[in-house]
């Protein structure tokens, strides 16, 4: 059995139920061929026999890879190709039949599809949708290192905020405003900022704000989210990973809806963008249909007071657990 998928971090988490599922379907050998990001997410999965690294050249589209897939799948009993499994089935992309249609049409087409279900059905097991959960694995050393770093925040109300995303509608422009409200309201709060090296201009400072932006890799941020009392982020892989643990996740949804990404999440505190166009179910690389405010898509502006209500819910959950 060979599975191929090249995707971003969130996409990789969405396929993480498959290795166990396939083993339980009786496949003695389960190999995955993945790109760099998925290589990180599935790296320690014990249900994968061979994790093969392959990075498609930038700009590659499906038909370019057909000869490659024909070659690599030789000798396997079954080949599951997840290329475009979410992009085709769950999101409207430029050039497809739905991209230029109304929001209502796309909501009807894509609004009822969960990304985990889509992945499992695409793999050929629709009857198993809902029966497998995402799984992330770490080495003992990775866990020890992360736990040791978190010791400094023992007993604090730990809020992990993702400041950025891969596209403009995934950047959390209101992060600083939300963080300062949290710190003003909760004396025991500590805010941890995460993001990439290119996001250092989005970092803000202050008492009880700790930034690991550009310092820690995605998978370490994913593990940190396990130990936090709340995670706040836009529609990014960090939120998908935080939901794996059942961490109260204030997922700020723009293009997707809760059915798409939160159906199976425990302690989901998602918030849908108040913009009329949200959810649009588009992969809006060029934003040609989007309304802008101050140079940003309008869907990125949330009601901060409502986010704070969700933070209070997360704080209450923590109080019950402590």
């Amino acid at each position, binding site marked *: 059995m060979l599975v191929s998928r090249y995707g*971003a971090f969130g996409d990789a988490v969405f396929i993480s139920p498959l290795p166990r599922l396939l083993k339980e379907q009786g496949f003695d050998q389960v190999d995955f061929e993945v790109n760099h990001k998925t290589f990180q997410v599935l790296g320690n999965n014990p249900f994968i026999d061979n994790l093969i690294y392959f990075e498609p050249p930038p700009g590659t589209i499906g038909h370019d890879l057909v000869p490659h897939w024909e070659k690599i799948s030789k000798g396997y009993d079954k080949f599951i190709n997840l290329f475009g499994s979410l992009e085709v089935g769950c999101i409207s992309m430029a050039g497809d039949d739905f991209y230029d249609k109304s929001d209502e049409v796309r909501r009807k087409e894509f609004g009822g599809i969960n990304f985990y279900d889509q992945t499992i059905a695409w793999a050929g097991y629709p009857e198993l949708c809902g029966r497998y959960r995402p799984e992330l694995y770490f080495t003992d050393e990775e866990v020890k290192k992360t736990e040791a770093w978190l010791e400094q925040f023992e007993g604090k109300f730990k809020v992990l905020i993702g400041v950025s995303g891969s596209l403009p509608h995934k950047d959390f422009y209101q992060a600083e405003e939300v963080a300062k409200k949290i710190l003003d309201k909760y004396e025991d709060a500590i805010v941890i900022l995460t993001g990439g090296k290119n996001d250092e201009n989005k970092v803000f400072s202050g008492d009880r704000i700790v930034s690991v932006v550009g310092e820690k890799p995605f998978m370490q941020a994913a593990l940190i989210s396990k130990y936090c009392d709340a995670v706040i982020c836009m529609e990014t892989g960090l939120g998908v990973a935080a939901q794996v643990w059942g961490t109260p996740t204030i997922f700020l949804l723009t293009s997707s809806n809760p059915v798409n990404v939160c159906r199976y999440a425990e302690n989901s505190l998602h918030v849908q963008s108040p913009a009329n166009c949200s959810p649009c179910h588009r992969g809006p690389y060029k934003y040609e249909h989007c309304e802008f405010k101050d140079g940003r898509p309008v869907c990125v502006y949330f009601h901060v007071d409502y986010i704070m209500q969700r933070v209070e819910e997360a704080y209450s959950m923590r109080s019950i657990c402590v």
Partner: protein
Amino acid sequence: MGQGYYDDARYRTLQMLPTAAFGLLKTASLAGTTTAASTLGYPLKMIHPVRVVSASGYFVVGGTNAIVSLVLSKSAAGTGTASTIGTMAVGTSAAATHKAFTVTETSLSAGDTLLLQRALGTHADVTDVMVTVGLRETFE
């Protein structure tokens, strides 16, 4: 069919990608005679700590090189010496096929360099290969 797939410039990924391939689409020609170990492609300097866990060659052009091996090496920062962490005998390889290196999992610190080298040998056939390296990002 969508026009591509989401890319994600966050975390270290954007910085890591160039280190994962010795010149994506740039092939290392194996034609000729090697009288001394030579570096192919370009040295890849790590800007974050990583662990090399796998490597493979993709043969753009097939051929037979019974003698030649490709060697993946680590050069620790400031030492100027290379130590082998993986090898792959070219042998007979059809075009558009992969062949895996035998790799000893090895950690590299920021500043260390990955090298792709051609071991000594004489070979006439043209064999172009693109080598990619599977890296796990080390927690900090």
